[in-house]
């Protein structure tokens, strides 16, 4: 993939949900969430993202700056950013790492619903076992190998690697 193709892929087909700390400091929620849409159409970027932010429960926080948002709210801004271009694939790296249990459930639920609704694939990497309840498929990454997920596995018990192509 050329550099140009790589940029285009990241922009249109891939959504990445990072850490809440990645947001532009000082920028408003609507500005942060419309970062990708700016590249498509500057004028329509903010009006386009607003319904999604409202759907994510941030309707009254659109004009709040990063520092004025809670960690859960920032995470939802990042979700809006990742989904803003209707990508085919969303990658989420520890999206709930800095959230409490209640917020974690809210965010994961939202993610699942939105991905179903928009027909997107979501790959979520997390250490949080409760995330498994929101996933269609769960795999365990152990000692560098992808294994079958067994929540009842005892500590130290060897795990069988998944077959090729699984």
């Amino acid at each position, binding site marked *: 993939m050329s550099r140009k193709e790589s940029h285009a892929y990241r922009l249109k087909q891939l959504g990445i949900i990072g850490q809440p700390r990645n947001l532009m400091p000082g920028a408003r929620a609507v500005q942060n969430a419309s970062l990708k849409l*700016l590249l498509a159409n500057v004028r329509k970027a903010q009006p386009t993202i607003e319904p999604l932010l409202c759907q994510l429960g941030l309707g009254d926080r659109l004009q709040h700056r990063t520092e004025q948002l809670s960690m859960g709210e920032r995470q939802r801004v990042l979700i809006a950013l990742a989904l803003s271009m209707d990508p085919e694939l969303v990658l989420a790296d520890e999206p709930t790492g800095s959230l409490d249990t209640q917020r974690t459930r809210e965010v994961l639920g939202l993610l699942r619903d939105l991905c179903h609704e928009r027909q997107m694939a979501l790959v979520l990497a997390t250490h949080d076992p409760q995330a498994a309840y929101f996933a269609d498929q769960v795999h365990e990454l152990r000692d560098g190998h992808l294994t079958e997920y067994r929540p009842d596995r005892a500590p130290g018990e060897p795990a069988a690697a998944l077959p090729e192509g699984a």
Partner: protein
Amino acid sequence: MAGVNLSGILYLYEIRLKSKSALIQESFAVLGIAIGVALLFASQVASTSLTSSVTQLDTQFVGSAQVQLEARGPEGISDQLLSEVKRQPDVQVALPVLDRQVNVIGHTGERSVYLIGVNPQQVRASGPLLRRFSARQLAGQQAIALPTPLAKEIGVGPLQTAKLQIGANFIETLVGTTLGQSEIGELVHSPVAVAPIGYAQRVAGAPGKINLIFVRYNPANAQVARAALQRLAARWNVNLVPGAFDSQLFAVAVAPESRSESLFSGISALVGFMFALNAMLITVPSRRALIEDIRPQGASRWDTAKILLFDALVIGVIACALGLVLGDFLSVAVFHGTPSYLAVAFPVGNNRVVTWKCFALAIAAGLGAAIIGVFWPMREILAQALQPLSDRADHRRAWTVARVAVGLCCLAFTTAILLFDTQAALVGNIALVVALVVLMPLLFDVLVRLFEQLSKLLDGVGSALAVTELQTVQTRVRSLAIAATAAVAVFGVVEFQGIQTNLENGLNTSSRDIDAAADLWVLPSGRLNVQPTTPFSPTAVNTAALARVPGVGQMSVFRGSFLDWGNRRLWVLAPSGSLLHPIPSSQVVSGDPTLAAERVRQGGWAVLSQALAAEHDLHVGQTFTLPAPRPLRLRVAALTTNLGWAPGALILSSSTYAQAWPSSPPTAIAIQTSGGASAAVVRNRIRQAKAVAPGLVVETSAERDRRRFAIAKEGLSRLTQIRLLVLIAAILAVIGSMGAMIWQRRDLIAFIKVQGYEESTLRRWLLCEAGILLAAGCLIGAVFGLYAQLLGSRFLATVTGFPIVFNIEIFAAITSFALVSVIAFVAVALPGYLVVRVPANTESPAY
């Protein structure tokens, strides 16, 4: 964390410095403050040196003498006055001096110096200069002594010969010795040549004449002694003035330059301070992180303040030391020059005088910038526990309102000064800078909003991101600091370039008008003899041979000299009444120029500088007594500008001059061409005819005008140097802080790249942001600078009486605006280019 002590602070500091990036940031802050300190120190030394060099020579020369009796004319007074002074009962010491401005010509160059003739037997009463000189080298020699650097410059050494040019005459003389630093200290840089008085009288062609008598009287009987000396002074028509009177006269002469330099130094200080402050802002994120780390561990606000104060002091002290060294170098390399136009009438040296005030100001600014730079961005974090959030917001609103109110008051104050009291322009200028700084956030926001509207029309991603970033609280302090630095620099440069151009145009008009009185001028050679005030023997010009030269029309004698009147050393011009334009009509500010010229021709009338007339409460038509060697009642024909000579000028006819200055020789011959011959052709014919002595030069009015203007411009050269230095420092400040600001965005850029942004888009964002910042800052500075031009030009015109042509120098504003913006913009393109190459990444936190 209970009560952090010094060892704890040191430990924290040490571990933080182990991080390479922290070390680089702190080093950059040190460098930034050092450059600010250097700029301030160098400009202070420059402005102090000029005045101090004359004062130093004066006090060193005068020693313990309380008063001096000073001749009123260049021909001096008879040394019989000395015997009378010595006969006064309370006079303890009377030291006669003959001084003349002469050219000393060596093997490799020439210099205009003050030849000081003193009595070797009596110099013990004088200051250190002559005491040391007498004890070692003076007695009995028929020679002169020169300061070593001056001797080297013109290529002569001890016991070698040099030529002295006095008027039109050349005399060969022996350089008996040269005087080094160990003998005459800092005076080694003064333009003096010392000789026994008898020898000085002989070479000057003034046997039995002296210019000054320094007198030390019995302090217990001071009143009686002074009264007796006053009576003597009145009888001999000489001035009784304080011992170190030249310093007072010089202070008046140099006032416009000093004031301008003070203003320039003030602006330099502000730019230097902002540079330092900007540099400190680079370290804000790491310091903020430190506070956020230690506060939850139990560190009180006082503990945190102590840690921050230690940081500030370390940076401040190292930066001040570095800045002083750098400033010392700058003051030697950049500001080392003497304004020649003042050297015409004063012994201006080029010694560098560094006073404790120069050090104190530079160190205070450096430490102040470090402390403010550390504490200001942290003020809210430090105060967090004291104020609830809503109060802070209210406080911020109140602070904004107060700032706007202060800014508007300052603007109103400046306008009032411009309209009603231009003399207070210095205060007005300070008020204008305060207004600029306090209104900066508001104006900046307005300009960013305007750009936001514009960017909506442009539909650009880069501009949209730039506006977003400029409106964020996190970057606001830094953005404002950068814009303010650019604004203050452009403000200073626009103001002073405008004033300087107006002044130069005025000087040009004035000198052209004076010189246009005749087509050709014959006067003693010597680069500085442009006024002209150096007398020469009438026999140096063969008038009969001159009259025979084809194209030579009417010839007339021109006389000129300097006259001390009150605290002013006036330039006296005495053109012949036969000249078509004896007074420069463009310089008349009160009275009818044609009538005034007619009256001056008649005799008994004089034209005065406005400032001089105001000092003596004189108006057109009023009578006054001119304190010349033979006091004369004159009437005021008109008032003029100071004709480019700061203390003021006086014009009377050559014949009136001869009454007041009896036996005064000519100082120039003015020649009108005839028969339509060009001045340059006639000049060549006169040279070929050898109708004038070799010590005289023949110049066309245009040549003289160019020479005079070149020397007058030298007086402004230091202003140009400071202006350029301010500009360079501002550009460096802007580049440094913008580069650092861009560099700190690496993590954010890495995250944005993950979202699919191309490097070209990110580059456009960074350049767009830099462009808005610079354009906003420079635009605000340029607008305020134009206003300040008006104020400054009016100030110089009314307070100093300089001839000024009023113009609003829009071109100067545009060039300064463009120069700072474009150079800084181009320079930040490099860090911008590098920073967008950071790999796409979501790992690191942005701040």
